[in-house]
């Protein structure tokens, strides 16, 4: 694993970041017919993938390093998205189809005023606070009870899935004040800027990139610290750790809540770029798909999940356009083959492959992997 984070590895990460940061420049500065011009669609796609990558990174922190497999990260992602979405809905103002200050779905339900939990959501920073606090609090409470009762392994996975399912049912209801199965959409502006304007989109893209890189560095710092080693102890031998005298509860709770918050931030960045959030984001299938990004990229590598998110979603974009009927076959086979033959994922397997290579080529696998990531990003 250390082979991933040697000098070459870091250099490649920096290069990738730079390339990714240059994309919007190519989008804005070059005319549409220039061969190096990056279309708005491509940039939006990469932006969306970066949100997914952030969610996958968050999941890797709990699954790869602490051994807690969550099948409920979709809820945190969606809650973050909904919290931001509330602001975006208020920012529509009177431009909705009914010309009312209330969002269209509330007018449709004949509501006269916002419900109490919509209070202050017209303030951007308050909503950003909600993005962090609401999923964080949910994760904290849920995690506290679960970890205190020492629910682990598969049981934990199953109850997180039940939680996702319950939330999905709840948000599909019209009377919860979150737009029912249509969710939030039709956003007009963010902080006074038109949401479809190229400048706004570039700003959102850059913010996502910055947060993704920042989160990667943060996670890397955490897993390298003493705290990170305790977390890995939880993963590998929780009972032994307890016998030594550590209480895993606080450690698990910390990393679980942090992961939920990172995932929520990913959701909050996702919503203005994609322009819609609805309860189907909370379906159990979506949460499991996140797990697959991590598994394919390589759990416990931090960079791996990012590669995995780009690889799987890139594949998905291509498949659903070229062979829509085959996508589920491909995804299903990916699940099966990765768990059977690629236990450590793409990045986890590369160092093993490197050992098979002649000596003069060693040290390059990380470069190859990062190059693959860069390819995905520019694709």
């Amino acid at each position, binding site marked *: 694993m250390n082979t991933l984070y040697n000098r070459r590895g870091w250099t490649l990460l920096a290069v990738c970041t730079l390339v990714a940061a240059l994309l919007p420049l190519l989008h804005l500065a070059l005319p549409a017919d220039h061969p190096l011009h990056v279309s708005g669609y491509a940039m939006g796609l990469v932006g969306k993938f970066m949100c997914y990558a952030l969610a996958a990174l968050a999941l890797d922190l709990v699954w790869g390093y602490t051994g807690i497999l969550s099948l409920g990260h979709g809820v945190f992602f969606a809650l973050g998205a909904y919290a931001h979405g509330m602001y975006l809905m208020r920012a529509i103002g009177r431009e909705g189809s009914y010309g009312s200050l209330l969002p269209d779905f509330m007018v449709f339900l004949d509501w006269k005023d916002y419900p109490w939990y919509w209070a202050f959501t017209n303030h951007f920073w308050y909503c950003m606070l909600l993005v962090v606090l609401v999923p964080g609090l949910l994760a904290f409470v849920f995690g506290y009870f679960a970890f205190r009762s020492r629910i682990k*392994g598969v049981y934990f*996975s199953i*109850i997180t899935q*039940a939680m996702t*399912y319950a939330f999905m049912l709840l948000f599909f*209801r019209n009377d919860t004040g979150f737009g029912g199965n249509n969710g939030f959409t039709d956003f007009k502006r963010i902080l006074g800027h038109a949401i479809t304007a190229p400048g706004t989109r570039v700003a959102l893209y850059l913010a996502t990139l910055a947060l993704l890189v920042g989160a990667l560095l943060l996670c890397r710092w955490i897993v390298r610290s003493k705290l990170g080693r305790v977390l890995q102890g939880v993963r590998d031998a929780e009972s032994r750790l307890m016998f030594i005298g550590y209480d895993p509860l606080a450690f698990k709770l910390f990393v679980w809540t942090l992961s939920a918050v990172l995932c929520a931030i990913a959701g909050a960045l996702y919503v203005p770029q994609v322009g819609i959030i609805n309860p189907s984001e909370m379906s159990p299938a979506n949460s*499991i798909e996140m797990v697959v990004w991590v598994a394919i990229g390589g759990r416990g590598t931090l960079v791996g999940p990012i590669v995995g998110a780009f690889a799987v979603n890139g594949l998905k974009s291509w498949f659903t356009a070229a062979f829509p009927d085959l996508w589920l076959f491909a995804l299903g*086979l990916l699940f099966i083959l990765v768990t059977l033959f690629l236990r450590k994922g793409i990045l986890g397997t590369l160092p093993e492959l490197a050992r098979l290579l002649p000596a003069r080529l060693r040290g390059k696998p990380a470069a190859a992997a990062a190059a693959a990531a860069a390819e995905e990003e520019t694709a």
Partner: protein
Amino acid sequence: MKHVLKQFLLALAVCLPVVANAAIDPALLQPLAGDDPDARVDAIARIAASGSPDARKLLQALLDEELVATPAGQILIVHDSQAVDAATGQALPLPDGADAIVVNNRLRGATQAALSGLALLAPDKEQRLSAARALQGQDADPARAPLLRQALARETDPDIQIILRQLVAVADLAATDPVLRKAAVLALADSGTSALKPQLQAILAHKPDGSYMEADESLRVAAATTLAAIERRATRNDIVANLFYGVSLGSVLLLAALGLAITFGLMGIINMAHGELLMIGAYTTYVVQSLFRQYLPGALDWYLAAALPAGFVVAFAVGVLLERSVIRWLYGRPLETLLATWGISLVLMQTVRTVFGAQNVEVANPAWMSGGVTVLGSLVLPYNRIAIIGFAVLVVAAVWLVLNKTRLGLFVRAVMQNRRMADCVGVPTGRIDMLTFGLGSGIAGLGGVALSQLGNVGPDLGQAYIVDSFMVVVLGGVGQLAGTVLGALGLGEINKFLEPLAGAVMAKICILVVIIVFIQRRPQGLFALKGRSIE
């Protein structure tokens, strides 16, 4: 028995016209030709009250405007320019100067009502039942009371008798005679349903000045008593209905979860493709049904008898294939098993979508399963739900027998308790794993056959049950058959009793929350094995 009765009624129907020939009193016919609208309507009601087939023929002719009145005062039925004397039934030449009897809207309505009342006297039981049900939906009409009484007197079927008694009471309630009304109110105390509450409440209503609309106090008292009785009965019926539907939902959950109780509960395999095994069972039912339709249309009612073994065998085969090809490489790695089986479920779902299309397919209940038995006056328990409850009991019994009374069951328990020891004494553990997983899958297939009888059969069928199935198994305690049964029934009952209070979706959410909290309190489930173990 039923057959003999049918023959008898048929014979009766053939005899009746002969007996009842010339049954209509000319005095009743006379007002039809007159001008007084009230007299005409009254005449129609009285003709209908005779209940004879001739009356039906006459009313139908009236409705079709085939009646003429001769100057001599005879009423003739003219059909295909053949005239028949309505009173005597004799064929006559059409006399000159006969006037067609004009039917206005009021008369037409009265005639139609009378005809539907006459259907109450029809020889066919189904026809009488549907006529009675149709009358239940109409406004009360005191003029119909004599006909209803007559029908009640002739009625032999208890179900229809109940409806008729109610109809008589409702008709009397609209009458003007206070004695009749009070008797009706009292009669309704035994047979009334909630649908009659408005009529009874009208008796108890106040005028704007505070006095009662109804002057007769004893009638008001009777109405209040009857209302209370009806409400008591409605509450009781609600509870019984909730209990029944709770058991029914519980048995559905049980059938869905029983296979998982073996693969997950006993073997510890997180089988996310379990829902798809249910779906395979359901689609097998569909295929068997289609085959029967094509090749054995006569035996279509019994296709389920073939679908059950077919569903078991197909799901068993798929299960064995999965175990040998994927799952056995993942033993001891539960999280990876979860992911791989999820992948399998995606592939299976997409396969079904490719083969059968993304739309739901139509699986029909066999004829003997449609309909239901009426209990407590108005509560209908559908046969298909009853059949599924019975089927669930059978499947549980069979699983218990296989696990506890057969050599295979002995091996299964041995391998699950101590794999190495079992291996040492010569149990072929690999084969037992394969067969156990196959058994669990096969039972899921059986569950799928049962589910196809209740709900939609589509590629997403499995997804709807997977979370519930895991909840049932986890709630019951992993590896505990009794726990699974109790967990399923408990969930079913809680769900049905919460539904009226909170709505279906909120009930479901509440239950998920309750389960999440419950698992946190007792991670081992309802029936935890006692003992000390760590990891």
